[in-house]
């Protein structure tokens, strides 16, 4: 007789950008987590809003703390918190603890959340050892390593391992895939010309791969590169990795017109 273990309670933090701009990334993540079966109990708490990274990176620590406290409280009851963004996950894992002094009771709660939080592809590939996504795409793709996931959380091989499970998909590695796309959150609004010049180089490198798809793990970077590709007249389609793994590539890519 097998012992009955209670399922792992997983909270999905969809992130504000996915919530507002591209809900299919959130649904894709839910679909992937559902494949694991009854060992996971997945919920999307409705108290979640923004992780506070824009405030943190602007030096507004008071606002950043307020928003962090909301996220910490919202996800307190969960065993694991999964985030379809290396940037927002990195904020929670690497920066939330620094927002609170050692003696502040919030510090322990921030530390606890940091330990329970996973970037989506790392959670699927490393924590759950997911080897079968059931996804298929007949074509080629290239992958952009977003900076925060790459350098703060070591997200590099996980998305590639997962993309290898997509039937028919061939991955063309992007030249200089670890260089920044120029998004940088509010940086892209504050220094639009500089940001625009950086993303132009990235878009050129992406086009040089002659792939059907550009895939990445952070919606902000993908909106930036997709917007540039479109302005350059490229036909390349752009998707978040959760969408590719959840077989949602029949829908419009990021920035793609509906009648296209």
């Amino acid at each position, binding site marked *: 007789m097998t012992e009955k273990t209670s399922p792992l309670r997983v909270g999905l933090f969809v992130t504000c950008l996915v919530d507002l701009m591209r809900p299919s990334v959130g649904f894709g993540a839910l679909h992937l987590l559902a494949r694991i079966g009854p060992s996971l109990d997945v919920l999307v708490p409705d108290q979640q809003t923004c992780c506070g990274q824009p405030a943190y990176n602007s030096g507004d620590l008071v606002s950043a703390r307020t928003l962090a406290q909301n996220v910490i409280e919202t996800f307190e009851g969960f065993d694991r918190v999964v985030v379809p963004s290396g940037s927002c996950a990195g904020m929670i894992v690497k920066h939330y603890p620094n927002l609170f002094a050692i003696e502040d009771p919030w510090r322990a709660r921030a530390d606890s959340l940091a330990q329970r939080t996973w970037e989506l592809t790392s959670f699927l590939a490393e924590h759950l050892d997911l080897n079968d996504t059931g996804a298929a795409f007949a074509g080629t793709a290239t992958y952009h390593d977003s*900076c925060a996931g790459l350098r703060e959380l070591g997200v590099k091989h996980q998305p590639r391992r997962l993309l290898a499970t997509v039937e028919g998909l061939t991955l063309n590695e992007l030249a200089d895939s670890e260089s920044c796309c120029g998004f940088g959150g509010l940086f892209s609004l504050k220094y639009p*010309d500089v940001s625009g010049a950086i993303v132009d180089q990235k878009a050129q490198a992406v086009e040089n791969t002659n792939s059907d798809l550009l895939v990445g793990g952070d919606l902000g970077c993908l909106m930036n590169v997709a917007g540039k590709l479109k302005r350059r007249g490229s036909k390349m389609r752009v998707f978040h990795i959760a969408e590719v793994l959840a077989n949602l590539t029949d829908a419009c890519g990021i920035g793609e017109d509906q009648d296209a």
Partner: protein
Amino acid sequence: MSNPIPPGHEPQCHDFQAGAKKALDNKVLQALLERTLKSGFQQRRLNAKARLPEYDQLRDQARDLKNHVLDNLDVYLERFEAQLTKAGGHVHWAKDAAHAREIILKICQDAGAKTVSKGKSMIGEEIALNDFLDANGVVPIETDLGEYIIQLRHELPSHIIAPAFHLSKEQVGETFKEHHTHLDQDRDLSEPSVLLGEARAELRDKFLRADVGITGANILIAETGTAMIVTNEGNGDLTQSLPPVHIALTSIEKVVPTLEDATLILRLLARTATGQEQTVYNTFFTGPKRQGDLDGPEAFHVVLLDNGRTDLLGSEFRDVLRCIRCGACINHCPVYAVTSGHAYGWVYPGPIGAVLSPHFVGLDEAHLLPSASTLCGRCEEVCPVHIPLPDLLRHWRTRGFAAKKGGKMQRLGLALWAQLARRPGLYHAVMALGVNGLKLMGGKRGAFKSLLGAGGWTKTRDLPTPQGGTFQARYRKGER
């Protein structure tokens, strides 16, 4: 004492935005940057790193060494002074840029100097030494090729290890023709080696005539009282050994305890900076010429500049004092890669400059620099002494925010966003309205070509439209 911008050293650009714009519009510069950074500096560093299996281990050691020195800075500096004094040299403590300039001028005047030859020194740039000497009747002559070029052009360095990095060889040729008027105007200067030869010929005589030689120092060695410098052109050796007086101008954080420690820094420095196993010339100076020595200066001075560094030591920016000035953070910065160095306005560009400049010139002048970064983290990744540059940039942003720098709109926007986002019910309702409005405007289009309020973004790229409905609203309606 704070060090306002020295006279004659006003920034070439007070406004990072305007400086960046100028660089972005400069097609020659853009082509140069694209060609030289990735396949040049970045690739050469990678190659050198691959040839040295213990490279990363050395980085940890260097970080620990520098931290140890910073914890005991007074001890090692006093040891250095004692040892150098024993060897017949003189140590001068300069609390700020003005003080350092006065010390150097006095040494030059006491030596009756008319001309001084100079090896490359970023500290010389930091204290704006050339303009000051010139104004006081002492003619400085830069002997590093890059420094010589920018001296002719009256420019700041655009890179800490390659001062004329922003110039093509054609531009250098034009500058030489403009200034070396005694030479044939129709001579062919298309080959870099010819440019180098011409500079060498011009400089040789000046080396011989200089009354004082001024160099920087990459490392100070406490146990022996030695200052050492690395150059690829050998100009440091000539500057140091030909004139009767040698001044090594450097800053207090360059000291290490032993010769062995210096070799640790040297193993990292050249590999990280240029991908060389070693810089071509590694020159150690310990005091003036001794009895029986064949060459060397009659008098040897070391000027130790503080210029606010002891303030950094006690601040959240302490880690920046580990810097060995290799330039790797600059070489790997995506912003520098399109703006080059002059946009940063002062002598130190790139991530290291964005951390140092607000300290030297104040946040009023330099508050845009710490925010001119995507915080991609590549600078920290390549730093040979693990300086957490993104964190340090954030610390400046925090100080800037507290001092109400930056746009009012941004402050207001952030405050409003934070107020809204801490009220999830209201937040979701307001956001759903906004998203649905945008979706209506976008129609079947996947992206906006232009959008009121996002004009900066849409000037250079499209802005993807929202997919339709917020995730939260759709999820609450039961969509899966």
